[in-house]
């Protein structure tokens, strides 16, 4: 048996504070479609960045066709025949397809665009990548743009193609076309690696699968030897879920009621497809799901930051209306957003100004001129109460650690005594201590009768905090289960797109 | 509010640093030449453009250099690039404060500021070029540029083949309108079919805009470009297109060797000498000087080799008539653009009418913004 086309051995990469890859192994053979499966943050992208020469591993070796290589820059990787289609395309939109393929080609100043166009047409016919070489990029659909990216790589004689979540932007029809193209390329002797977290996709297109979790290789399996259930378990982890210490509570009145909610994402595609949810006072509803399945859009609609197409959102019986964040705040909705330092806090302002973000309209600061001294006193009290550590009340908050930022954010949102608290990935990127604090604060709020909508990727966190868990997949709620009755495997399957009914069946 | 001190610091430091330098500079002993210069009479010039404009300001600066050469007891200084606005008042004040006894302000827009500053410095003589306001210690001076302009018009009228002449003009003020009229009258005196197309640039000095304006005239069919502008830009445009051009202010043939036919030019030197001598002798009066070709303050630059002898003779003859006083540029009959007789046969425009003219003669194509 010949040497594998790509072999990565014992790859380790450490970023300040995070071990992104730890002793990762990956072997891909020519003629194979290889899926790299894992949750967000499992280390897939880092591994591929190392393979394409963007990062250098702290330890480990890479072999291409059995020869050890040492990529010093992306250019080295390209020369070794490795190419990547990124999630965000790197195309120049006013240029034509041909011109985009020509960009970065070697061979001096002479450029025969006509000949190039003919060659492009040839490549696209051969692999079934239909695209007009003369069309300008901005005229093309997202799917067509992706084809241009692939043509770029094929034209450069790439033998290893890496695709980062290629179907995320595609319609089902386009996705099927893509699979058949990938199969043709594999048949030509290329190796295809695609990054994904969708189980269906893996089963449909891949020959073999490597699963990463927490920066480590879990396993490499052949498709024939596995099924979705096993993959789901490997992806989310077999660890025993820690449960308990959560005082029992009988939920109170319904606070948040969502009916038939539909909305679009930033690209204008449907992101929410008829969401029905309710959260009661003193209840934590956890939403599980792989990031990018509509969770962000859901909280944005509730918070009044995104228009909804259809459906209603009511808090305590009051309709929140359309895209009016001010009204949402007045209805008593606290919101701990995913993007702490971009949306939740203003990086260059101090703690006082950041704490005022939702309180500044309050008449208690004075009628015309704001009483800065009173605001400062109030801020100081909050900072003390929530034990936020910082250089000073006026130092830009961007200098604070992640844990302290989250404390500051929670201090503000909780101090407003919300009826409903939206918490999105509240412990992401935090260390154990800070995570502990966040969990304690959320449970305190639950005890105080606040309705909490908790969005998390961390199943352990959900099992620990939530009273009920809903699973979101592609803009739909796959099912809602009380935590005590929830089964990890079922949740994993629903995260991969199986409906609750099917699971139980 | 926390960040304010940084720039404050820069300001303080700059002032301190300059102060330090000032201290050092103050200690160096004044040189001999400086002491001698103190006995000399100081004469100041205010220029609207840079001395290197190869046009209006350059011509004045030639006059300044001539003055310094002719009168060894005079020392001159100048300030260039002074906008025709509030800055002029400060610059004039500065020159007066520094002990300049005679100050020549060489652009129309300085007029009100000259009068204002003259009031404050009664011992200083102010001379304002091209204006019309005077004071006991402020006079005006200018020249009958219409005379050489008329002659240059004759050259253009003879050299054109398309019978369309282009005229790149600065501002629609009497000085410029007068020149356009004289040029047109001259051209039509030798070629009655000639039309003169006018483009306004609204700037005295802007090489790029002037050139662009000339190109637009060339595109409109003009084959000789005249100008009331301070740079050789329009002539360079003509040179590039292989057409002809008439310069202004000074002989600009070096900038457009094959295009530049001739130019109505200024010769300020002798007048500057005469004025400064009069101030020194105490004979100076606040007059409104309007020099003519006879006085030598205006003239026609040498002809380009392409101008035929026949044309040269014709122009030379007319020049003599002007100098002898047998020919006057604005003598009747003169029709305006609508064909109405403005100056009857045998009549003449008065000096005041000439100075305040706000209409075009027949043959000019263009509008005066009203």
């Amino acid at each position, binding site marked *: 048996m010949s040497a594998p086309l790509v072999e990565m051995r014992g790859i380790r990469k450490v970023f300040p504070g995070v071990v992104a890859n730890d002793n990762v192994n990956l072997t891909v053979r020519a003629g194979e479609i290889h899926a790299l499966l894992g949750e967000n943050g499992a280390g897939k992208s880092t591994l591929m960045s190392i393979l394409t020469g963007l990062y*250098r591993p702290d330890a480990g070796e890479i072999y291409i066709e059995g020869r050890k290589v040492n990529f010093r820059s992306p250019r080295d990787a390209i020369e070794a025949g490795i190419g990547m289609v990124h999630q965000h395309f790197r195309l120049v939109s006013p240029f034509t397809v041909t011109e985009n393929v020509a960009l970065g080609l070697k061979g001096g100043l002479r450029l025969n665009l006509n000949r190039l166009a003919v060659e492009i047409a040839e490549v696209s016919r051969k692999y079934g990548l239909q695209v007009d070489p003369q069309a300008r990029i901005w005229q093309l659909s997202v799917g067509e743009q992706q084809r241009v990216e692939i043509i770029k790589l094929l034209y450069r004689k790439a033998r290893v193609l890496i695709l980062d979540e290629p179907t995320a932007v595609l319609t089902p029809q386009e996705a099927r076309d893509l699979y058949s193209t990938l199969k043709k390329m594999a048949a030509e002797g290329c190796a295809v690696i695609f990054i994904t977290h969708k189980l269906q996709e893996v089963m449909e297109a891949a020959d073999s699968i490597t699963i990463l979790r927490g920066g480590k290789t879990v396993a490499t399996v052949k498709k024939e030897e596995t099924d979705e259930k096993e993959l789901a378990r490997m992806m989310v982890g077999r660890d025993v879920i820690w449960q308990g210490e959560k005082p029992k509570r009988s939920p109170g009145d319904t606070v948040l009621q969502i009916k038939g909610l539909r909305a679009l994402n930033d690209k204008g595609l449907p992101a929410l497809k008829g969401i029905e949810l309710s959260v009661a006072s003193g209840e934590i509803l956890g939403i599980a799901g792989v990031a990018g399945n509509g969770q962000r859009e859901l909280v944005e609609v509730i918070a*009044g*930051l995104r228009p909804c197409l259809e459906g209603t959102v009511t808090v305590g019986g009051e309709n929140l209306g359309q895209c009016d*964040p*001010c*009204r949402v*705040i007045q209805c008593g909705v606290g919101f701990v957003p995913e*993007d702490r330092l*971009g949306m*939740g806090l*203003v990086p260059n*302002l101090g703690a006082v*100004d950041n704490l005022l*973000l*939702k309180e*500044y309209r309050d008449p208690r*600061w004075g009628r*015309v*001129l704001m009483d*800065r001294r009173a605001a400062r006193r109030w801020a100081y009290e909050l900072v003390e109460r929530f034990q936020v550590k910082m250089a000073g009340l006026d130092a830009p908050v961007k*200098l604070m650690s992640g844990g302290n930022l989250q404390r500051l954010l929670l201090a503000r949102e909780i101090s407003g005594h919300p009826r409903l608290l939206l918490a999105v990935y509240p412990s992401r990127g935090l260390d154990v201590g800070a995570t502990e604090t966040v969990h304690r604060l959320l449970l305190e709020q639950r005890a105080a009768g606040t309705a909490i909508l908790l969005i998390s990727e961390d199943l352990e966190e959900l099992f620990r905090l939530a009273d009920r868990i809903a699973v979101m997949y592609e803009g739909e709620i796959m099912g809602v289960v009380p935590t005590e009755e929830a089964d990890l495997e079922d949740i994993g399957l629903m995260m991969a797109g199986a409906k609750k009914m099917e699971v139980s069946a | *509010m926390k960040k304010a001190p*940084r*720039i*404050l*610091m*820069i*300001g303080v*430091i*700059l*002032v301190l*640093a*300059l*102060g330090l*330098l*000032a201290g*050092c*500079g103050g200690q160096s002993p004044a040189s001999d030449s400086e002491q001698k210069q103190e006995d000399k009479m100081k004469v100041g010039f205010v220029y609207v453009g840079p001395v290197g404009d190869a046009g209006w300001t350059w011509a004045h600066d030639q006059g300044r250099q001539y003055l310094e050469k002719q009168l060894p007891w005079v020392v001159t*200084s*100048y*300030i*260039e690039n002074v*906008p025709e*606005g*509030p*800055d002029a*008042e*400060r*610059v004039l*004040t*500065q*020159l007066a404060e*520094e002990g300049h006894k005679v100050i020549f302000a060489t652009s129309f*827009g300085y007029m009100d500021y000259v009068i204002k500053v003259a009031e404050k410095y009664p011992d200083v003589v102010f001379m304002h070029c091209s204006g019309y306001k005077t004071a006991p210690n402020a006079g005006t001076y200018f020249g009958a540029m219409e005379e050489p302009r008329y002659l240059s018009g004759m050259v253009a009228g003879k050299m054109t083949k398309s019978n369309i002449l282009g005229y790149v003009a600065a*501002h629609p*003020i*009497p000085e410029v309108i007068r020149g356009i009229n004289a040029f047109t009258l001259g051209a039509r005196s030798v070629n009655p079919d000639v039309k003169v197309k006018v483009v306004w640039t*609204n700037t005295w000095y802007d090489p790029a805009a002037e050139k662009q304006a000339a190109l637009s005239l060339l595109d409109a069919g003009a084959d000789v470009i005249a100008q009331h502008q301070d740079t050789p830009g329009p002539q360079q445009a003509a040179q590039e297109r292989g057409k002809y051009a008439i310069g202004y202010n000074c002989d600009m043939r070096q900038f457009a060797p094959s295009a530049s036919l001739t130019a109505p030019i200024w010769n300020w030197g002798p007048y500057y000498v005469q004025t400064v001598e009069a101030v020194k002798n105490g004979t100076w009066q606040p007059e409104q000087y309007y020099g003519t070709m006879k006085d030598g303050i205006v003239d026609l630059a040498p002809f380009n080799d392409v101008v035929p002898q026949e044309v040269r003779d014709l122009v030379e003859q007319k020049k003599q008539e002007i100098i002898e006083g047998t020919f006057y540029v604005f003598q009747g009959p003169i029709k305006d653009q609508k064909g109405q007789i403005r100056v009857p046969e045998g009549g003449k425009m008065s000096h005041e009418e000439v*100075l305040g003219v706000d209409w075009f003669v027949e043959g000019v194509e263009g509008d005066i*913004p009203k």
Partner: protein
Amino acid sequence: MTWIGWEKRLQPSPWMAVVVPVLSVVLALGLGAIFLAATGFDPWKVYLSMLKGATGSKYGISETVVKAIPLMIASLGVSVAFRMLLWNIGAEGQFYMGAFGATWVALTFPHWPAYVMLPAMFIVGCVLGGLWAVVAAIPRARWGVNEVITTLMLNYVAILWVDYLVYGPWKDPQGYNFPLTAPFTEAATLATIPGTRVHLGLLFALTAAVLLTLILWRTRWGYEIRVIGESVKAARYAGMNIERNIILVMFLSGALAGLAGMSEVSGVTHRLQHGISPGYGYTAIIIAWLAKLHPATVILVSFLFAGLIVGGYSVQTMGVPAATVSMLQGAILFFVLGGEILTRYRLHFGRKEVAR
């Protein structure tokens, strides 16, 4: 493989805040000195004369103040828009519209007494300047049209509009067709400090600086401006109305530039004329930037600039050409700005790490 790169400093070190500006100015003066010496001038004398021209006499100081007034007011306007990341490049045009509005009042109602005339000129000047900015603000707020382009283009429109007036309908009948309006009546001119040209505009500028400071740091509106300027996402999250603020802030910005125009025609030129602003609106941008958009600092930097301009003219009588003076001014700016960058970024020289 050696390489050079930039790295952003988290917080500028305190000693650099002192050393860098000193070094910048010394370097600028040093470079200027070499250049001056090479072209045959005594650098000490040139610098001395520059300083004396700008600050060496009561007259020099007063002229520096006169020059600083329009720069201060326009720059305050620019800085408030920049604080919200609204790149209002149109202060020049708003200045012209303010001058136009004030002139309209002065010419149309020549019989009004000063106590009616001046407030009317003030208000109309501000409103026109403000509206001119709003012309660009509305497309920006509604459809995200880049205000850099629109405000810049509107400058030309405003300048040409004023040119049309002074060359056409508003031309002084006694002006021999020169591009000037008739002079204003006494009632339409701002009071000056006797013996100088320093006019009431100075008070406008200082008041505006104080008010702006209060607005930005002590009012809810100012708070919104600061938050939006730092993070639009956070502002939306907090329920602030971004569109309304874009329009309001642009109006304020334009109104200040318009006030600069009003105070220039009413305080200095006493008439509208072609080229009323020698680029005050553009210089205001540099000032706002150097002053880090801080009102009090804007006032100081404006004086610095005015001093550079006034001092620049005064060294010309030593025979230093205008171009050399501009070069000196440029060198000082260049080094101060360069020094600013050095305090915020760290320059790296090093070798690329070698992979094991």
